[in-house]
Every structure is written in C-alpha cells, then in structure tokens.
C-alpha cells in the first residue's frame, strides 16, 4: 500500500504540473520598432544598413550587364552566363529574380515606419519632455526620405522599362496590388521624393544636427541637415537625368533624342550644388573610390557585421575583353582596381574574359560608393550632352581623364556621337564595379543596348575544338533583371507597367 501511495502521489504531482499553459519565450522575434528615443538609433542604423548585403549582387549584375566585368566561378557559371546574357533569365529565374528587390522594399518599409513614428517619440526638452523639435523632425525626414529614394533608384535602375511598384509599401498584406508604374512615373516619383527631402532639409536649417549617428560611410554629410542636402541633390541630379530620358530616348544610335531639357537643366543645377560631395577640383587620389569625396556603404570584418560583398570574390571578377579593348591599362582609375594575372578565367565563358582582375584596393572593410565626386562629374557631362552642349560635356570628361586618370587629354570632336562615346568610355573606366549603374543607364538612355560588342561564341563543337573556337559570335543580351516571380505570382502574372 505504501508503494501505491507513492505512485499516486507522483501521479497527482504530474497532473498538477501538466495543467499549466504551454508558453515558452520567443527567442527569435524581438518586439521590434518600439519607437522610443533610445531605439531610434538602432532603427535608423537598420535603415542605413538596408541593402548592404545585397549590394554585391547589384554590383555584379549591373557591371555584367554593362559588359564591364563578370564574376567567373566554376561552381556558379550563371554569374557569367545570366548576367552577360547567354542563358535565359526570364520570370521565375531563381538566380537573379528576387535580388535587388525584396530587401530594398523591405528597407523602404522600415524607413516609412520610422518616419510615421518620429512625431510620437518623446525626448527631454527644456520644458521637461516632448517631441523632437520641428527642425530635427524635418532633418530626420529629409535624411531618411533621401535614403528611401535611393533604394527606389537601385530598383528602378535594374528594371528600366519593366517599371517599379513605388506605391505598394505599407499597404495591407493581401490588398489588391496597385499597378507597376512605368519608368517615366517611377523616376517622376523618385524626383518628387527627393524634392520633398530637400525641402525638409532646407526647412530644418543648415546647422540642425541629427539626433542619431550615421554610419561612417556618411561622414561627409552627417554633420547637419545642410551637409546632408548635398547627398539629396546629388541623387536628385542623377534621378533627373533618368527622368529626362524616360520619355525622350533617341530612336537611333546617331541622334540626341528628345530628353526633357528642363530636367536636364535642373540636374546640372542639382549636381553643381551637391557640395560637399561635388567639387570641381579633381585629383589623382580620387582614382581610388574610397579616397574620393563621396558617400559610401561601409563594411567591416567584425562578427555580426557585413564584409564588403565584392571583396570575397574580387579576384575572380575579370574585366571583359569588350571593356579592356577601350581602356588604357595605365589609367590610374583602372590600376586602382585591376591587375594583370597573366592568364584569365578558366571556367565557363572564359573566352569573354581578359587576364585582368580585381585585386587592388579591395578588402573586407573597403567601402562601396553610393555616389562620389568623379561620378558626379561624368553625370554632369551626360546632362550637358543631352542639352547639346558637347564642348562642356567633353571638357568635364577630359577633366576626369587627366586629373584622376593621369592620362593626357583626349582630342574629341564636338559632335554628339564622339562626345557620347568619349563620355561613356570615361564613365566606364571611372566607375567599373561600383554600385552606380551609370554605364548601364547611359547605354539604355542613349539607345546603345543593342550595339554592345560581344565575344560569346556559339557552342558549335566541344570545348576547345576548332569548331568551337571558330564559332559564330553571338550577341546575347541581358539589360534588366526580371520582375521576381514572387511579385509576378502575387499579381497573378499581371506585371505590365502602367503609366497613369
């Protein structure tokens, strides 16, 4: 009976213990965005961090589609075949599909959430406590709205005429999607966002400081609203050029087209007023991106941070023969990044790669430019090209060539085609592998996508055979990343852009 009593006691204890609610801590989902003054710093840091992990893919894809460089690896030949166009990469492509899309909209959502809650954040004031002063609220808005516009610019650059659904962030999950906007309206909205950001920064006042610390890559513009407005205007200048050409691209390869001259005029104004990033004074030091005046994505090799996403694969990033053909390998801008390995890649697509690869000024903590002075010089040249001021355009490009590249000035005829080609070449060597996408933008805007050189050979025989080596050149093309399958699926396949 004693045994029975013990057993029953154990049972009773068990029953009582088992009748509690099964609750365990949630380890992986934090409360998220509590929107307090204390949390604002980490939320803003998260906003700046937005797309850092994906910027490497953006770089590789944009540079591959520009026929500048490609990442050659035997294990993943699609970095070559898809980005430079030999392989099919339509909707449903899981390689490129979701990249430069999901993270960017997600980052925008984060920014919108912060902005919506900034007015409610309570901070100590001279009279006790209250919201941030209006000037600081305007400064926060101006900075984050600029960041948001920049994320949309990345997406717009990779999709071109496929369009971007700019108005979807923040709408309820499951709501009927709004149409994807066409390129013209996308760039219009991006310019409008930057207008709004610039207005806020202006209202804030040039000396108003931000109530948070920006990442080191933004040091040049982080002191106050006035300096940050330089970034806003630099981006707006670039966006205006795209907006100008969105409806006025030339229809052939010889004429200037009908770009919106008002936007181009404003672009010139924006860029030259983009100090402290813009400076008419150029030097050879600016051949190295990190040494230029600019704003950067910063990286580090410390735990739980992000390393420069290009660095790990840098030396397998080979300059394509197409690019090498028009580049002086003594150009300081080229030498700042590339070295001659003696032999080129050995994996798939080896025949389009040169023996030059990315080995200089690259490390896990090397920053990647968002926008920098050399880029602005060449964007300015492009704006003048569109305005028909070929002499000014050539002069600006020659300024970069001589002062930064260390080369003698080029003698270029002051006509559209020569000026255009000269600017494209200087742009190419100045900003290869950087997160700018300027060359691809220019190729599209100037109707040159269809005439890019290619050295792809038809696979008319086994590798290395005479039939293969003598194969017919093919003009494979990839100039956009497809709208991701997920976006397409959620829209029931309706991804045709609409111009309202």
């Amino acid at each position, binding site marked *: 009976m004693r045994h029975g009593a013990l*057993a029953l006691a154990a049972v009773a204890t068990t*029953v009582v213990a088992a009748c509690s609610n099964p609750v365990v801590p949630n380890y992986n989902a934090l409360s998220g*965005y509590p929107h307090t003054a204390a949390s604002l710093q980490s939320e803003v840091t998260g906003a700046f961090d937005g797309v850092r992990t994906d910027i490497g893919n953006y770089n590789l894809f944009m540079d591959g589609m520009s026929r500048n460089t490609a990442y050659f690896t035997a294990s993943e030949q699609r970095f070559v075949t898809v980005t430079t166009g030999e*392989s099919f990469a339509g909707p449903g492509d899981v390689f490129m599909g979701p990249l430069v899309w999901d993270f960017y*909209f997600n980052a925008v959502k*984060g920014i919108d959430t912060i902005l919506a809650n900034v007015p409610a954040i309570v901070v100590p004031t001279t009279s006790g406590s209250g919201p941030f002063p209006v000037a600081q609220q305007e400064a926060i808005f101006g900075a984050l709205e600029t960041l948001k516009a920049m994320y949309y610019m990345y997406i717009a650059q990779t999709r071109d005429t496929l369009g971007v659904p700019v108005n979807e962030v923040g709408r309820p999950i499951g709501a009927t999607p709004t149409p994807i906007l066409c390129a013209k309206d996308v760039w219009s909205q991006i310019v409008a966002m930057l207008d709004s950001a610039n207005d806020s920064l202006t209202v804030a006042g040039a000396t108003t400081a931000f109530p948070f610390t920006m990442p080191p890559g933004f040091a040049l513009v982080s002191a106050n609203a006035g300096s940050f407005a330089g970034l806003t205007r630099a981006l707006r200048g670039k966006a205006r050029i795209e907006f100008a050409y969105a409806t006025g691209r030339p229809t052939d390869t010889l004429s200037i087209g009908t770009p919106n001259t008002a936007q181009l005029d404003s672009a010139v104004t924006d860029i030259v007023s983009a100090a402290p990033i813009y400076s008419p004074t150029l030097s050879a030091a600016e051949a190295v991106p990190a040494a230029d005046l600019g704003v950067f994505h910063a990286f580090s090799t410390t*735990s739980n*941070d992000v390393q420069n996403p290009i660095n*790990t694969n840098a030396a397998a990033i080979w300059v394509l023969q197409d690019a090498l053909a028009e580049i002086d390998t003594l150009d300081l801008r080229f030498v700042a990044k590339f070295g001659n390995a003696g032999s080129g890649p050995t994996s798939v697509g*080896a025949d389009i790669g040169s023996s030059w690869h990315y080995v200089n000024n690259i490390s896990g903590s090397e920053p990647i430019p968002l926008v920098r002075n050399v880029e602005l010089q060449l964007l300015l040249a492009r704006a003048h090209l569109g305005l028909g001021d070929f002499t000014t355009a050539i002069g600006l490009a020659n300024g970069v060539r001589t002062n930064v590249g260390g080369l003698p000035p080029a003698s270029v005829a002051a006509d559209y085609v020569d000026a255009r080609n000269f600017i494209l070449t200087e742009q190419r060597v100045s900003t290869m592998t950087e997160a700018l996408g300027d060359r691809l933008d220019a190729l599209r805007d100037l109707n040159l996508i269809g005439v890019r050189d290619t050295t792809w050979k038809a696979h008319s025989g086994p590798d290395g055979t005479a039939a293969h080596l003598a194969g017919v050149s093919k003009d494979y093309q990839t100039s956009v990343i497809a709208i991701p399958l997920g976006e397409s699926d959620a829209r029931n396949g309706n991804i045709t852009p609409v111009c309202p």
Partner: protein
Amino acid sequence: MRARLVIATIMSLALVFAGRASAQGTMRRITGRILDSADHQPLPGAQVLLTGTTIGVVTTDSGTFVLRVPSGAQSLSVRRIGYRSSTRKLTDDQTEVTVDLLRDVLQLDQQVITGVGTAISSKNSATHDPVIVAAAISNVPTPTIENALQGKVPGALISDNSGAPGGGLQVQVRGTTSIYATAAGQPLYVIDGVIMSNASIPSGLNSVSGAAGNTSGNGPSPQDQQTNRIADINPADIESLQFLEGSAASAIYGSKGAAGVILITTKHGAAGKPVYSFTQRVGSYDLSNTLPVRRFTLPEAQTNNISRGGPLTAAEVTQNYNQCHGFCDFQNQLYGNTGPSYETDLSVSGATPSTDYFVSGLTKYDNGAETNTGYQKQSIRTNILQHVASTLTASANVAYAASTARRGVNGNDNLGIAGYDNISYTPSYFNMDARNSNGSYVRNPYGVANAFDDAARILTPENVNRITAGGNLDFKPVTTRSQSLEFILQAGADYAIQKDQFYAPADLQVETSPLSAFPGTSTYQSATNQLSNYSFSIIHTYTGIRGVQATTSAGLTHDQNALYLPDIVSQDLVAGLANQQYGVVQTSFYSQQNVVNQGFYGQEQVLLFDERLAVTGGLNAEASSNDGGVNRYYPYPKASVSYRFPNPIRGIDEIKLRGAYGVSGTVPNYGVKFNADSLRGYLGSLGTKFGLVAGDPGIQPETNTDFETGFDLTLLKGKLTFNATGYRKRITNLLLQAQALPSTGFDQQWINGGEITNQGLELQIAATPITTGHFTWITGENFARNQAVVNNIPVPAFTPGFTSFGFSPFGGYRIQAGASPSAFWGQTLVNGVPTLTALGDANPAFTMGFTNDFSYDRLHLHTFFDMRRGFKVSDLTEQYFDGSHNLEDTAGTTARTAAESQGLTPYLYNGDYLKLRELTLRYDLPFTFIDRVGRGMFRTASLSVSGRNLIVWTKYPGLDPDVSNFSNQLVGRGQDVTPYPPTRSFFFSIDLGL
C-alpha cells in the same frame, strides 16, 4: 481548471474502485508447459491467461507455469512474441496441460500498440500498422536503422541523401504531409513508450563550402549534409518497430503524429538464465558507381588545355598525360578507399524472479569510401524491469551513444571544393594526385582546388554524445477475474550534444584563391538538443461474458523540446593553427528554439463476439506553445472497427475487414506567430530592421484527416497472408509561407490554408511456399502507391523556399492547385516558347519490395530487392561536368547545353531503379561442433557473409537516383549535387550465443 477537475474525478473513482474486494470462488491448481511446436523446446516468457479474464502468469526458464483457476471447464490463452497465440480448453478436473505454439513466421499475431499502455493483437487491429521484427533488420549490417528499413515497409518511403558514412536518410510516410511545417518532415520516434528526438542538426559545413552563398564563413545551412539523430540507436538493441502510418493510429500522438509514428521496442530480459549474444562483423565499403568522365587522346588534351586558357605548357600536358597513362581516374582514386570496417555487438539478458534485465554494448567503425572519411560509434544500453510488488512494476531504460562522423566536403558548394565538383572541372589528363617535392599536392591549374589535398587536409569531425533515459511506473492496484485498474506513469529525457569542428587550412589552394578573402577557416558548433516528456494514464480493463473485452484509458501527456545552436566561424587563421581564437575574422551565429506541447486523451477499445469485432474510439486534445493561441486545445479524434470472419469459405482461414478514421496534426514551426526582426551590427552600432517574413499571431496546427480501409486474408492454414489497405489522407489548414507582395516590404507571410490529399494503396503478401523437413522458403512482397495533389491553396502558386536550383535547366518545385506538391516543374517548348510545366514527380509512382529467405538445414540465404518506379531526379552534377565539357558523351553535353541556352530543362531524369539491397548467406554451425569446440560454452554459433546495396539497375545517368542535396525536406528532395557517391558494403559475421 476544467481539465484538473476531470482528472481529479477520474482518480477519485479509481481509488474507490481500488478499495473493492474481489470475490474469489473455489480454485484449483493447473501446472503446464509451453513448447515450440517445431523443435519441442520449452518456451520461457510465454504469457498464459485464463481466457476471458485478466488472470495470468508468465512461463519460467523451463517453459513451465503454475496457475490457479476456478473449478469447472475453463480455457487458457497462450501468447508469446514470435509465435501465434493459442487457446486450450481444460476439462473439469484437468490439472496439467502442455501447449505447443506455432512459430509466427508470417507475423499473423503480434501485439500492436494502440495507445499509452494499451495494445491489441494484430489479428484484431483495425489499422494497417506494419511491424518489423529484429530478424528483418539484422540480416545485413547496417550503418543506421533507417538503412535496414528501406523498402520493407509499404507506405514508408526511406531515401538516402548520399552515400556518406554515418547515415543521412529521410523517412516519409504516406506521401507529402506538409509544405512548411518542419515537424512533419520526419515521423515521430517513440522508444519504449517515450518520445525521442530525431533532430537533424546542420553541421556548419556551409562555413567551409559556401553552399548557401558564394563565400566561405557563413553559418550552418540545410545543405550541410546532416544526419538524423535516430542514427544514434543501435539496431541490434531493437526488438521490433511498429509503423503507425495512418492518423487513426497516430492520433494518440495528436499534433506530433501527422507524419506517422515509429514505435520502437527495445529488447528486454526474459525468464531464465543469462543469455549472452556476441556478434563480430568485419567488412568494407566500396564505391558502387562512377560517372563516365571524358577520356582524351593526347592531341585532344593539348587542344583542351588551350581552350581552358592554357594553364599548362604542352610539355606539362604530355607529362601529366603520361603519368596517368592517358586517364587519371579521380573517382576511384578519391573514393576508392576500401579500408576495413568492423562492428562488435555484445549483449546479456535474463531475469530473476523480481528483475528482468538487458544490457548491450556496441562498437563499430564504418570506413568511408572517400579518403579521410568514416563513422565510428559506441553505445551501451541497459533495460531493467523491477517487480517491486505484486501491484507495482518499475522499469528504466538508459542508453548512451558516442559517435564521430567524418563525412568530408560533398554536396552542393560554391567554392569548387566538393569532391565531384572538383572532378567535374578537372580534365582527366591532369595528374591531380601528384605531389610536389616537399610532399604537398600540386595546385590544380584548372580550378581553385585540388580534391586530393582537400580530402586529406580539410577536417570534418562531428562528435555526438547522447544519453537517453526512460522510465515507467506501472501500478495495478486492482485485478479481479473480470476487471483490472492500472496507473501508468511514463517519463523520458533525451540529451544530445553535437559538436562540429571543421578546419580548412590557410594554405589550401581554395583558401589562397580569389574565392577566399580570409585564408583558413575553422568552425566550432556545439549544438544541444534537450527533449523531455512524460505521460500519465489510467487504464481499466473489463472482461465479460461472451468474450466481451473493454479497455478504457485516459490520461495526459506533456513534452518539451529545446534546441540550441551556437556556432563560431573563424577565418584568416595564422597558418597551422586551427583554434578559433587565432582567426582574425570571427563570426558568431546563434539560434535556439523551445517547444512545449501538452494534451489530454481518452480511449475506449472493445472486443466483442469472441474477439471477432473490434471497435476503438478515442479523443486526444493538445495545445502547443507554437500555436497562436496557447490556451486552445485542438481535438484529434479517432475511431476504427474491424471484423474477423473465420473460415468464410473453403481454403480461406480467415478474412478480416477493417476501417478506420482518425485525425492528427502538425504544430506550426517555432516563432511563426511573430514578425521576425532582423538585427545586424553596422560598424559598432546595432541595426534593427524588419525581417522579410510576416508572422501570423493566430497560427494554428495543420490538420490531417485520414480514412483507411482494407482487409487481411489468411489462407492455406496460415501459409499465405495477404492484406490490402486503401487510404485517403487529407491535410487541411496547411502552414504556408505564402508569397506576399514583395513590394509591400514583406516577401513572405505565414498563413494557414489550403489542402493536400494523399491517396494510396498498400499491399502485402507473405507466404511459406515450401516448408519441408530440410528446406524452407519464406517470401514477402510489398507494394505501395501514393498520389498526392494540392487541392487548393489560398494564394497564387509559389515556389516553396529555396528547395531547388531553378526550373531551367534543372527543374524545381512549385506549389500549385491541381498538381502534386512534390512535382518537378521545368521548361518545355510549347509553340516554340519555353513554358513552365510539371515534368514529373520527386516521389515515386509506386514502390515494391521483395524479400526471400531460403533455408536448407543450417544454411540460410536472404535476399531483399527494393524497386521504385516513376520518379524524377534533378542532376546538377551532370551540368557541372557539362560546364567543363568533361563527360565522355560530348554530343550529349552539346545537346544539353543547347537546351539550357533555350531556357529548357535538360537535367531532369527518370530515377527508376531496382536495387539488390540485401544479400546474406548464413550457416548455423551444428550444436555438436559448437559444444565440442567451445567446450560447452556456446549455445549457438553461425557464420555469414552479407552485402548491402550490391547491385543497382537503373537508367539514371548520375551516380545514384537515391539522393537529396538538402537533406531532410518536406518537398525539395531529389537534387543530385556532387554528392558523396553511393557505396556498397560487404561483411563477414560471426554470431555466438552463450
């Protein structure tokens, strides 16, 4: 509160019941013996029951028993594991009896577990719950228990992930049960009534291979070629395995039972003297297949070298070519290690009047076919059952296992270091196995790595230490002629530590290549899995007139499962130092989860009309911390009925018709009820962001509703049995990570919704066609067919996570209404346009298994063939070779490459196969010989030679169609990505009984 009241009421009633005195009439003493009908040897451990009562006894070591029974005509029911039960009538004055039991070679009469502490004879069972006995898994040495089960259980699809040592298999019961609910990925394992972990923990191989990225230094990934922890079980400890395939059977495990339940019963001591068993096996593993790698003539080699950028001079090409006599056979050089493997098993079992015991030990080593790989395991187990008092029994099972697996770098990688990845881009005229003058391997000029150097110097040890313990307290305060009341308390704990310490030296070619910014990688992961559970049950049995038997049970269950995964990856190591602290770049990863489930159940099991009619009904209610509402108990009812027709027509011994209905479920994944946030450091600051996946605070478990019906036929006086089962398994309220509109900021969202149906047919036939004095032939065949379809989903069609590598050129998965959830989709030309189409299925259209055991006197031959038809495999490995034009069939490469450039899917193949899984030839030495040689020490001795996976008949062009790059997957199987190649094993064994 209501639940507490119910339990309290039940207990009060039980205590009142317990106080009742049982009336006893005039009794007499019966003595008897139970013998084996074949050799007339006494059978200890047989259960002798007074028919229709709960009064019984177990036979002694000499097969005898003494039982007091009421006066008058009576009958005894005798039952023993491995024998068919028998009923013997006793006359009014009979006091002695001898019963011969027939061996149950076709397993007609086994105890089938129906609940916590309840069971029923398989002849009455209303569900099809295949039982695998020890003999069926011990014929051929097996790396892990799952290997020994492949193809033998209709409805259980057991597939290899690769040929790596130490296991790595997936078990899928009756088709795809879920799309995203990871708990439904594998069946639940219950050992001696206690739930045990079958966690599959990523090792961190991705840190070295870059499989889930294109760099080294990342954290663990599903592509880490991990194994399931059920691999820790010693197959020799297992008495039997019972598969609860349908929800009618698995409903007792509620929200953990949707993917099926495997009940493992380990060996226990039986009455009699200590019985010692000793087994020694020696053998080897051997590469069983190779790919047709391209051979070059010397001129072709020179041309190829030029086309590859000319990394070697013409003279060097000639030199290499000659060193290999024209063909360097990398596959057999790298994977041709046939070093010895061994296994030693020792066990002792027995029983004293108050204690039953079983103690076993194992030590084994499986040598890997790849250089520097292998699997070593030691385990011990102790099972003790103590008869504390006439009404109280306590038992305890404790097992400890320690293993070390070295599995090399295989499977998907993005650095070019996996063995077959490396072979795919290295031409066969290059002598990659050559050494420099300082003894180091030559650099591979055709890529970034030398496979031989990698195999020799990349270290991949995975150490597992695991202790499992289970206990059972069985209190039976009331036993009368017609009723009994029993309280059972079961509890168990399972604690495993898996340590992975991988090391890639800084001077490896790949580490010094452009692909690695930080030469040298060292990882340290120490994963801990803690599982505990207990249950309490009250069981009342009633045995009445006309064979009425009613078993009523009720109780509660509680389990908790926690997993902690800290991982440190260290890079840029000072040459020669593997310790993580010497890495310049150190990255830490950490994740953890904790799940608590609890439930209450009640069940009624009734046998009527002389046990012809069996009716069972039950209800289980469970709540889980993973559910959105943790206070809500989800019901899992079940009901089943069977009826036996003895001798319905001439020639048929018996036919049983059966039907069952049941509901089980699957708890949501940990954390899906929350919006996950994303945290990351940004040069000293911490950044907070939204994750990409939106949570659902109201998330619910999936529901699996199962109908099954069938019949069991016994013919020719038990020499032939046939059973057929049809089922329809409908999974609703699916956990879906549905596609959100990415432009909203979330690209996925967790939801409940949609429906999958699996319909299938399972057939089994077993027979003893020949049983002469000397010769016996026992045969068994099984057939299973399952068809799955997504009936509906509340969202547009979507690709379920990263489960494949693209519709073109490989084929991938897509969840779409009207199609199979495991369908492979790819691109075909429709009107000249590449169009996404379902091109086949990763799961077979049907499977068959063929077992044959032949015995001639002491000589025994065992064969088992495993067949699968109608399934597809995505062969990325071939595409790797095509990329470097490195296959013998260059025309095939050209065709596939052309198809790929058209956006088509040329790498999806039919995987049909027939495998000779098992072959054993055993000779039982004569007792006179054993006795003489062993000087009376041995009871039995046998010698055997055996092989596993000896021959494969298939048209699949890859290494083995039984392959899965992503390891455990609900969908997403059948990806052939440079895996550890398949092996076959040969063993010589000596079995001794003392």
